[in-house]
């Protein structure tokens, strides 16, 4: 995924004066501003109910702001056509907090969905999906129907589905909540590797441990507003 230098100057997500409210409930987020540079990596924190999932769904184009403008990949979402939005979404990988797998399909078929949507041929799909499922240690569960998988297995399927397309932006909502520490570390490595290849990453998490273990800036939601904390310590030189 080569990065065009000129484009990389432009933020991949630009949120200006955005408010989110559901129906006539009070605002969840109020008048926030956020700009994510291409290739950046952020944690997203905040108390339960602070609006992390809401902010992410704004970025994966599932939620329209009640006020303000959202620009993703340089396109103002408010003016994008249905088809443009669909094509933009193909460049975004999403890990949902509640996985949202297609429960009646196998792990394999779930991971294959984004590729099938793109119209890729089955031979290529098979190659890519099997490789990735092997990597997340799900070779043996590949053909199991998703509703029969354990929570941690589902989570890994959800992550595999989000990254199978090598997205330009990865939005993960509590992606390591249900897995063992070593798998969590392995998944984090996957995100970091993707980020190194150019993917912009945002990971919503409650885990202070995770935040401490990895040294990335943090978007914190509080009182309907947003603060950005820089990385806790210098990025270790050999990591960049």
């Amino acid at each position, binding site marked *: 995924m080569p990065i065009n230098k000129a484009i990389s100057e432009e933020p991949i997500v630009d949120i200006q004066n955005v408010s989110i409210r559901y129906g006539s409930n009070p605002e969840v987020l109020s008048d926030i501003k956020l700009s994510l540079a291409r290739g950046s990596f952020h944690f997203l924190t905040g108390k339960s109910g602070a609006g992390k999932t809401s902010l992410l769904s704004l970025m994966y184009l599932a939620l329209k702001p009640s006020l303000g403008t959202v620009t993703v990949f340089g396109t103002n979402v408010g003016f994008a056509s249905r088809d443009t939005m*669909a094509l933009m979404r193909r460049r975004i990988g999403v890990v949902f907090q509640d996985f949202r797998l297609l429960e009646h399909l196998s792990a394999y078929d779930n991971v294959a969905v984004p590729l099938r949507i793109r119209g890729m041929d089955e031979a290529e799909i098979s190659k890519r999906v099997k490789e990735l499922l092997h990597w997340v240690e799900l070779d043996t569960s590949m053909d199991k129907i998703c509703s029969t998988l354990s929570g941690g297995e589902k989570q890994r399927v959800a992550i595999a589905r989000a990254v199978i397309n090598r997205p330009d932006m990865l939005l993960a909502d509590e992606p390591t909540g249900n897995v063992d520490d070593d798998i969590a570390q392995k998944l984090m490595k996957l995100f970091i590797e993707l980020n190194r290849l150019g993917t912009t990453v945002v990971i919503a998490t409650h885990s202070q441990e995770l935040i401490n273990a990895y040294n990335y800036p943090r978007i914190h939601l509080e009182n309907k507003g947003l603060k950005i904390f820089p990385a806790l310590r210098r990025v270790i030189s050999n990591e960049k």
Partner: protein
Amino acid sequence: MKNSVMLNRHAELPLNKDKANLFLEIMMAITVFLFAVALSGYFLVDTVVNKWNQNIAGSLTVQIMPSETELTEDEANLRLNKVITFFENRPNVSKVVLVSEQQMQQLMSPWLGADTDITDLPMPKLLDVYLENENFDYEKTAAELKELAPYASIDDHRIWLHRLLELAASVKTVAVSVLLMILAVCVLSIFYATCTSLGIYKDIIAILHIMGAQDGYIAKQYARRGFVIGLFSGVVGLLLALLSFRFLAYMSADMEQGLIGNLSLTAANWLALCSLPPITACISMATAYYAVTKTLRKIM
């Protein structure tokens, strides 16, 4: 089972397990059945009308009343031949045929019984006059015939044929309206079943959208289901119709003939009937596709 084989095995929308399928299949099988029956009715009326037209429009019958006084054979023949010659010499007449005593006997048998000998009865003589084309002038001929041989009269088929043709035309109109209504019911059912199904699977559809699926991607899965259901129900409905035709044919084997003649469909008619299942499949496919793209635009 047939659906799971024919539907995309890994389709994201589990439409082959949709509860609406059975409803749609039954509804569409009945639809195709009714459609086939109405269509065959239309074809048969068409065939019958054509036969009447061919057999009757091109001919007229002339009745020669028996004389009130005793005639010698020569006088009687003269009387008859005068009329025959009159018609043979008219323009646009191709052939004049005297209806034989045997045929007369046959014609009269329902009234007189098969054994009665009619040669002794004062029977009218009948002439079948075959016309070459439509240009035959009935009024003028009738007038001249009255002058020449007042004992002969033309029995014009046109009047009752005209009434029958009018009746046939209204039967056809009814058949066509039935066809159109059946079609409308079919299309509407598929449309609303599809809309309902979109509601049932809205979560899956939302996920597919988030992963970048365009409406067409979802519509294709519905279109595929529509095609399979349409084809299956079409075949079932057509088979049911054929079965009931056989039954009707069996029941009416004794009647037959007479006015209507041998009821049968032409090769083109059969072709039209057999094209019902694939046509149903295509209509159902197109309707499902249209319903999805139209509805998703509105609700998501």
